[in-house]
């Protein structure tokens, strides 16, 4: 077991998460003032369930970003995972086999990404961008323009079900958030991951197994994408080859709004969770207020930049 020096010199993560929470609340108050439909249990549950899918994708990505890496293959992993797992669930009539397929594909993609980044030293952006194309191509070839749909209701509980009036994905999200936070902040492995991004030279010199930890974060990101593919299938009851392209950028946006730095070493899963909620709330609000479609991308873009800018201002003031 290695003690990681330098960790207590990191900025106080708790303060930054609290700042984001405040931003989220301001947005919530604003929306409830503008739309009477906003502040209802059903609407808030909808928002949480929509945010859950985004959070599953961004959770593993947060760990990758902590190491100053990036995973652009998430959306394509979901597309391939959902298409193949969907076919398996239908043809083999086994949700478990389908789940193993999606997680297997995610894990394998992550392993390849991790090996390219750590062993071949290919920049993460390039390695995972190349992977995106390969996976997308495989998904297109595999589906040949078809759609796989209609899954057993037992499996669909993962996306559609409720436990004590709370949507299943929301409960899973809460569990993942708790486990992930403990992993990233309270375990030696988690601290080593943060350190690789904060100071790679110091990490190597102090004996952190950099390559193995890098492979680990990409595998976790792949597994998270594989799991997101399952939730997608269960929720949408179908999959086609082109579902991934619109998923990757919002996942990255959630991580960045959540306060993680692309330069590594900074970021929390709680922050990413709030980032996912902010993005989802913005879309929810625009729908409730019937904002014209031409303005929606613009509003989203401004909010992403503003969130990160406010964060930087906050850091400068504190330091």
């Amino acid at each position, binding site marked *: 077991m290695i003690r990681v020096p330098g960790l207590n010199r990191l900025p106080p993560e708790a303060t930054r998460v609290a700042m984001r929470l405040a931003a989220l609340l301001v947005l919530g108050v604003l929306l409830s003032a503008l739309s009477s439909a906003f502040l209802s249990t059903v609407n808030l549950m909808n928002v949480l369930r929509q945010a859950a899918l985004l959070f599953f994708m961004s959770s593993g990505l947060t760990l990758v970003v902590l190491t100053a890496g990036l995973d652009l293959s998430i959306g394509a992993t979901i597309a391939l995972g959902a298409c193949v797992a969907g076919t398996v669930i239908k043809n083999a009539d086994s949700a478990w086999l389908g789940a193993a397929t999606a997680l297997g594909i995610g894990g394998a993609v992550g392993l390849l990404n991790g090996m390219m980044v750590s062993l071949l030293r290919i920049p993460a952006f390039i390695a995972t961008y190349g992977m995106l194309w390969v996976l997308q191509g495989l998904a297109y070839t595999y589906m040949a323009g078809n759609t796989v749909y209609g899954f057993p209701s037992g499996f669909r509980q993962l996306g559609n079900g409720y436990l004590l009036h709370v949507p299943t994905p929301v409960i899973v999200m809460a569990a993942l958030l708790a486990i992930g936070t403990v992993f990233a902040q309270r375990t030696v492995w988690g601290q080593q991951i943060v350190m690789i991004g904060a100071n790679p030279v110091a990490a190597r010199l102090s004996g952190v197994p950099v390559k193995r930890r890098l492979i680990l974060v990409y595998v976790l990101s792949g597994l998270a994408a594989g799991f997101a593919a399952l939730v*997608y299938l269960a929720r949408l009851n179908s999959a086609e080859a082109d579902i991934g392209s619109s998923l990757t950028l919002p996942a990255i946006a959630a991580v960045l709004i959540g306060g993680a730095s692309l330069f590594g070493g900074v970021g929390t899963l709680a922050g990413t969770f709030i980032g996912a909620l902010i993005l989802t709330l913005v879309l929810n609000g625009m729908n409730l207020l019937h904002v014209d479609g031409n303005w929606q991308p613009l509003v989203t873009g401004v909010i992403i930049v503003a969130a990160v800018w406010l964060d930087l201002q906050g850091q400068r003031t504190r330091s």
Partner: protein
Amino acid sequence: MTRVSTMALALVLGAFAAHSAVADGEKIAVLTKNQTNPFFQAERVGAAKAAESMHASVLQYVPTQADSISEQLSQIDDVITKKADAIVIAPVDYKAIVPGIQKINAAKIPAVNVTDRSSGGDFVSFIGADDYTIAKKTAAALLKAIGGKGEVIVLEGVRGTATAQDRLRGFKEALAEFPDVRLVASQPANYQRLQAMQVMENLLQANPNVAGVLAANDTMAIGAMDALSEAGSKALITGINGSKEAIDAIKSGKMLASGDYNGFVQGCVGAMIALRYLRHEEVPKQVTQPTVVITKDNLAPYDVPLDGRQCPSWDQVPKS
């Protein structure tokens, strides 16, 4: 390691390279927009079937990245190099394709335009269905079915694309004919299922009494359908494309109708016209597909897998 990955890459890319069907006679290059939309899959199968029955062969070209105009332009270069006898093309971008079409014209390869009309270049013929009319007729079917009154929501396609604009215009035109119907929201869901479901979930909070939903494609209609049924809404819903999934949903009563474009027939007719032209037979300058709104009452001919479908005979093709 490097060699293995290069080989793997070559395999993956090889899967997308033009694959030809061997037959006697002419070689027709068929250029479609993407691998993902079932519409273009139907168009490819239709073209291949027509060519086969006329003893010719097709070379299929599909961009690896969906709707990539740069890829489609370089595929045109490839078609010219390979000296295909004729080309049947569904342009990814009706404006940006024009320089490519001019190259084809310069190489004296006859070109047939299908699906989206190119804004320039010389074509033997254009075969298409018009988005505006399809959207208008589909919307009219929904508005009649809800009794000509109540609240309606529109789910739009990708803003700025010709199809999305024309379909939205068609919807609005139909709405104008039903003064007691109120359009309470028109929001984009970008032809995507997940977005349609989430947008619908959101809109149902502000507009719980919606009576009908007009989706600009089937994928969005089905995404919205799930959100509606979960919220216990009885709203009727229509899509556009006549996809297999939509046919199933119409059959089981979950969806009211789908406007049909019939990619299969467009592919058939495109290849037939190209071959007839090469064989110096008479061809029409334009073929407009009759617009059909598929409902429970007329879905039988659509409830057949692609491989089992038959191209229309030349006499059945409308020549205008």
